[in-house]
């Protein structure tokens, strides 16, 4: 057999029927993650056709997008943004009950952002095909799974048949050579990569990230990188599993045990792309040349080193983006007044992200007039952070410590900013209006976001730390 990439291997193993020029292939789905927003219409379709869920044990549900991040009141009433949002959550609870699906609901310690709880439970495993009605499903690719976002019609397909009609995507290898400098995070790396290949640069492709700088990343950091693959337009992004992956997964609730674990790991070790495997595209990135990186425009490809001046608009599109952001080309990004800081989302809401933010905020005060929201990715992460006292650090600094959920990344639950406000956000999208109508979003790492919260203006974290030292 000719050398295969990890993408080929997973694809080959999951083909129920191969594709032809007339029909797409049929691809089997190992794990289907669902949440309240993109599923109600799919369940309605099943009901109207009298269909059952084929493999309820392969479906994992949670509540995250429309859920309030403020706690329930004394009577247990949750502060939903609208009655419709409450109804959507109630609907998922009812659908899971009717169709026999496990729901990590309000009483579960594994309720949280769908892309945080899959790995946390060990439901996400190497070599799997994983889908979810959510474009950030590529997060699970950090474990060497082929994971991608689908629409609601396809959610219905998977519920009913556990399969999808798919044509095989192209492959792109992104080799990250060298070593990230101290204080430079996985978020800086992925923002830099998206800036390099562009927001449409990955369209039609699955990206495999590799090279020494990727191998040196923790699992949390790998999730941050894979998470944003869609922001380059890619269907999915993944990283070959290695000992770091296996050590992270071992002992989690849904991983195999004993001899099964040994067998699984032996198989997972064969997933890595074969020497000489061919990719449709290859990109080389030098990690050592990357510094703290943030976005300055209205899509995640408009990024720049934080200490650099805002690039001048090269065309009418970029001029429109700068006008929306109220920035001028040539102006410094540092020193821009910040109104809101958001630390959270499936990109950066894990314990290590919260620790990064807390390291900056410890013993300091949030600048006057800045609102800071810290939103853990899951109930478990919230508990772990509280056990370490991170919540005390955030509260003492003047930040709001919230319940787990997607929160201000998508702003469906009422966690939004006001028109014209500038938000430094650890999330994944800086689209116009993403965090509320007229809101200006700057994407950054947890460290950069925390520094902005304290300084009240966008600040180079290296300069900030030197001043503090």
């Amino acid at each position, binding site marked *: 057999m000719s050398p295969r990439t990890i993408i080929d291997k997973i694809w080959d193993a999951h*083909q*129920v029927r191969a594709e032809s020029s007339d029909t797409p292939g049929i691809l089997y789905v190992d794990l289907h993650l669902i949440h309240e927003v*993109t599923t109600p219409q799919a369940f309605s379709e099943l009901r109207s056709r009298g269909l059952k869920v084929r493999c309820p044990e392969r479906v994992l549900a949670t509540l995250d997008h429309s859920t309030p991040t403020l706690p329930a009141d004394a009577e247990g009433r949750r502060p939903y943004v609208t009655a419709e949002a409450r109804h959507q959550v109630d609907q998922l609870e009812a659908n899971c009950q009717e169709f026999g699906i496990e729901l990590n609901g309000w009483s579960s310690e594994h309720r949280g952002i769908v892309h945080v709880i899959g790995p946390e439970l060990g439901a996400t495993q190497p070599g799997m095909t994983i889908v979810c009605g959510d474009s950030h499903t590529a997060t699970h690719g950090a474990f060497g799974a082929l994971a991608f976002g689908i629409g609601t019609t396809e959610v219905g397909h998977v519920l009913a048949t556990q399969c999808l*009609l798919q044509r095989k995507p192209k492959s792109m290898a992104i080799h990250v050579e060298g070593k990230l400098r101290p204080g430079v995070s996985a978020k800086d790396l992925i923002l830099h990569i998206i800036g390099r290949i562009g927001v449409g640069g990955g369209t039609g492709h699955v990206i495999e990230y590799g090279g020494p700088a990727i191998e040196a990343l923790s699992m949390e950091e790998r999730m941050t990188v894979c998470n944003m693959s869609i922001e380059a337009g890619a269907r999915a992004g993944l990283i070959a599993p290695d000992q770091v992956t296996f050590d992270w997964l071992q002992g989690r609730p849904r991983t195999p045990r004993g001899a099964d674990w040994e067998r699984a790991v032996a198989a997972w070790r064969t997933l890595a792309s074969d020497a000489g495997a061919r990719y449709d595209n290859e990109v080389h990135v030098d990690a050592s040349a990357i510094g703290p990186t943030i976005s300055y425009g209205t899509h995640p490809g408009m990024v720049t080193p934080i200490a650099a001046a805002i690039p001048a608009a090269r065309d009418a*599109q970029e001029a429109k983006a700068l006008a929306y952001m109220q920035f001028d080309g040539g102006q410094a990004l540092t020193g821009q007044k910040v109104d809101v800081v958001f630390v959270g989302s499936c990109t950066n809401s894990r314990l290590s992200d919260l620790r990064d933010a807390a390291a900056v905020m410890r013993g300091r005060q949030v600048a006057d007039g800045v609102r800071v929201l810290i939103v853990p990715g899951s109930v478990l992460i919230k508990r772990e952070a509280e056990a370490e006292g991170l919540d005390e650090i955030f509260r003492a600094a003047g930040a709001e410590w919230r319940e787990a959920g997607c929160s201000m990344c998508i702003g469906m639950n009422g966690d939004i900013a006001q028109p014209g406000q500038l938000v430094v956000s650890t999330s994944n999208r800086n689209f116009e*209006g993403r965090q509320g109508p007229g809101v200006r979003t700057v994407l950054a790492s947890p460290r950069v976001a925390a520094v902005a919260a304290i300084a009240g203006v966008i600040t180079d974290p290296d300069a900030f730390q030197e001043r503090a030292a």
Partner: protein
Amino acid sequence: MKPLNMIRSCTASLPFENIDTDRIIPARFLTTTERAGLGRYAFNDWRYHEDGTDNPDFPLNQADAQGCRILVAGHNFGCGSSREHAPWALLDYGIEAVISSGIADIFRSNALKNGLVTIVIDESEHRALLADPGIELVIDIAEGSISKPDGSAIRFELDRFARHCLLNGVDQLGFLLDADADISAWESRRAANPYSMEKAA
């Protein structure tokens, strides 16, 4: 899905690149549990002023765009989230086809499953169409051609299965349900050898 083979309509232009799904329908309208009636939210924050009145600067609010069912949009249309509410909103608003030089993967997949035709054409043809809103086009799905008023035609490629489904109103879920025996066979083989990376089909 109703069979669809021809679309004859004037065009409306949105000459902006990277129109994301949050622009097409903002997230705060996604708390619905229905798929009908989303047209009123299409391009909401672009189409209306904050007070709810129409924004006259939004291209689709202009007089000659009214009733046009073909949207010509800038490169990388539909990037961002996987929300199928985006094609649902466009269809309910009255758009039947989107033409661009690049269309994001998930949006395209969602659109075609709902009978919203997505057409990618080369950059120079695309530039010309974008710059000339209001002209009448005839999209022939079986032929893969767009006829212009001057008698010229633009060829386009459409995945053969997607074309077949559009032309015949094929229900893709029905196609998958018909594969039940193959799916069961795969599951049995997998159960016997759960971690194999051998070629299955």
